């Protein structure tokens, strides 16, 4: 079995696996990283978003080989209760979810957006999050939380 190397949340990682297997399956099934969620398996809902380089991608349909030698960031690498990312603080402040299953991927989309565009407009945020679905109807709270985080990051 070939081995694929990448950096997972900053840590060098090596996986012996079929390189065509979906990254999500490797993260959850092999590495026990459950931040990214399975929603559809077809890249349509965004619950599985992770950041590769500086872009959010659907890990459910990205083959393992596509992240060879790259930086992969999952929700676990975004921040922690002790050292939260401004987005995580903002999602708590805005109570920006109902069930929160989709939020795992949405936080990663938002983090990638803020890397590329630190001062997004509301329309920018909505457009960036159009690759993520939310079924509970928390879209507006989520948009507010992303804008709050952007403001906070701009001020600091």
């Amino acid at each position: 079995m070939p081995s694929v190397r990448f950096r997972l949340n900053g840590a060098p990682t090596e996986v012996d696996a079929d390189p065509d297997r979906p990254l999500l399956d490797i993260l959850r099934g092999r590495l026990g990283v459950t931040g990214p969620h399975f929603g559809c398996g077809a890249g349509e809902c965004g619950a599985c978003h992770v950041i590769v380089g500086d872009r959010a991608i659907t890990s459910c349909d990205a083959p393992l080989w596509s992240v060879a030698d790259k930086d992969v960031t999952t929700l676990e690498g975004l921040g922690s209760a002790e050292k939260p990312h401004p987005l995580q603080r903002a999602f708590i402040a805005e109570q920006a979810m109902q069930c929160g299953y989709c939020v795992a991927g949405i936080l990663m989309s938002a983090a990638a957006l803020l890397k590329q565009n630190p001062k997004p407009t509301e329309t920018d945020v909505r457009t960036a999050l159009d690759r993520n679905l939310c079924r509970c109807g928390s879209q507006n709270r989520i948009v507010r939380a992303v804008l709050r985080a952007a403001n906070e990051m701009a001020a600091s």
Partner: protein
Amino acid sequence: MNSTAPTLPVSLAANPKLSSWVKFGSDGQVTLSPGKVEIGQGIVTALAQIAADELDIDLARVRMVRATTAGSPNEGVTSGSLSIQQSGRAIRAACAEIRQIFLLAAADKLGVNAGALDIEDGTISGPGNVSTSYWELAGEVSLDRDATPGATAKPIAKRALAGQPVQRLDIPDKVFGHRRFIHDMALPGMLHGRVMRPENSQAKLQGLRDDAARAVPGFVAVFRDGNFAGVICDSEASADAAVTALRKGANWSAGEALPDENKLADFLKAQPVESTVIDARTSANPGKTARTIKRQYTRPYIAHAAMAPSCAIAQWTGENVHVWTHSQGVYLLRADMALVLRIPVENITVEHLEGAGCYGHNAADDAALDAVLLAKAAGGKPVRVQWTRADEMTHGPFGAAMAIEIEADLDANNEIVAWRHAIWSNGHAARPGRGTKPMLLAGYEIADPFPRAISGNPPQANGGGADRNSIPLYDFPSWKVESHRLLTMPVRTSALRTLGGQGNAFAIESFLDEIAAERGEDPVAFRLRHLKDERARDVIRAAAKLANWKPAAKPGIGYGVGYSRYKNTGAYCAAVAEIEGDEDIRVRKLWLATDVGEAINPDGVSNQIEGGAIQATSWVLKERVRFDRERITSSSWTEYPILTFSETPQVEVQVIQRSEIDPVGAGEAAHGPVTAAIANAVFDCLGVRVRNLPITRDALIAAMAAS
């Protein structure tokens, strides 16, 4: 207030032992065990608020226990917007009594009058600096006693937490990726199962070759019982590969025919039905009918389409099985599992873990039985079963399609003299655990199968099913409401948010709007003129005020209003919609006002109303389960699209706080009013009445052609 003897709240009457609800640990913690479960609605937080408030403890001391048949109070199912009403009232009454019990015990111990004692964060103190605490007394005070009616809860003015927008307890875990969802749980030695289901509706498994599945690395076992078949492997990836291989070796029968999705009303009205008169009112002095108008409204089958596919874990130990599930009712699921497995309920433990947002009876219970069956072949190891996206979109129960006919007799001034409302629909409830036959999918598939249940409707006393919200809330002189429940069920239906409430409110409020327009009367004024209930009038006036009703006409923009009181007895809600319409409809803004009585957590209520409003917008603009004559075809997000971030309207919510009135739930209040408000705004904008949901471009064209 009345003078009858006090009674216990229903959930407390059913589970009177105080210790089944509340326990004091020795570590300064309080354990609260509701029978209701978190389904993304924030109930865990609201219940903790109520308990902390009544007991006078810090919210951080409350530990919430997930519902389990191993000891939680049996509160039936978490549905119908009843959790605050049932669990909340029970917890308030139980905690008020517990507080009193401890005050008396403290008075005894401290030698002071109970009336002179105060409680602050669990410390009970009195004159002369004497003090003790719940935790000091916990060893001496037994809560293994039944609640007594009449416990006095705190006066409203003294409530410190209930009524406050405190932050939800579960949200930090979810933003930091801590394992909280059932999907993220891993048990030692856990195996992974996948079930193979037919594409064609109710097809039978006529032959199965499993050699290719067995050859998949990581394969553990194939399990087959009649038409039910699945695989177990040591990883999800292997299970996916094995079930794909198994599918190739399966030979299915043709299945049962499905209706023509483009002729839903014709289908619904042509089936054998059970007809019930839901309500009738006659007038001694009816007005004189000048003309009669009749309209027909339809809504399609609607999918739950939760973000996560259903998931469950099961583990057999000898004759006993432990099940982890995101079911809405652990006891009810256990009852049906016992029927299918033909074992006593005592052998089954069902424990709740959070899943993705739940909007009614979805596939959670079905997945739980799948896991239990597959785990029979796992040699005592736990088996986790996760459905595929396609199965989630095609094999779970759907919200039932409806055809609704309303006929009104109008007098010479177009005032309503008589009103007739008739519904054709499959039943809206086929929940597990309530009958002598199980209501679980695999129960219909096993070799010794149970009959496939035809959905029923709860009685009006429980809010009704297809007939929910069909009885007019307006003071028409006379009416007759009739419900025709289908006795065939080619498409499986059960409870989806509001049951028939969304369809009925859509029909009633659209029809009223049409009559008001014919009269040249403002639709808000028209509604207010027909409503005496001040709480109803208040939400309509509040929503109208928020929207600055009625904004000046602008080309391409329309405004509409809708109102309903959920179940006719629950939360009041009014909505105003602003839409932009040309070839397509875009909902730009929604203004809503709601009255749930005492809003325990106003931010939680607002979140539920806003979420309901956005979900309803999605239903109205986009959603329709698709099928051909053989199978459900809307098996992915491409074929069953829902509202995106860019399509989401701005939403403004006003919660009218009425602390003096017993609280009711908010989760289903917005769907009906929002649906109607959008449809009425479409008319305001384009001059066309769309009476068949969803309001897509095709529906607009069809409505224009018909008018």
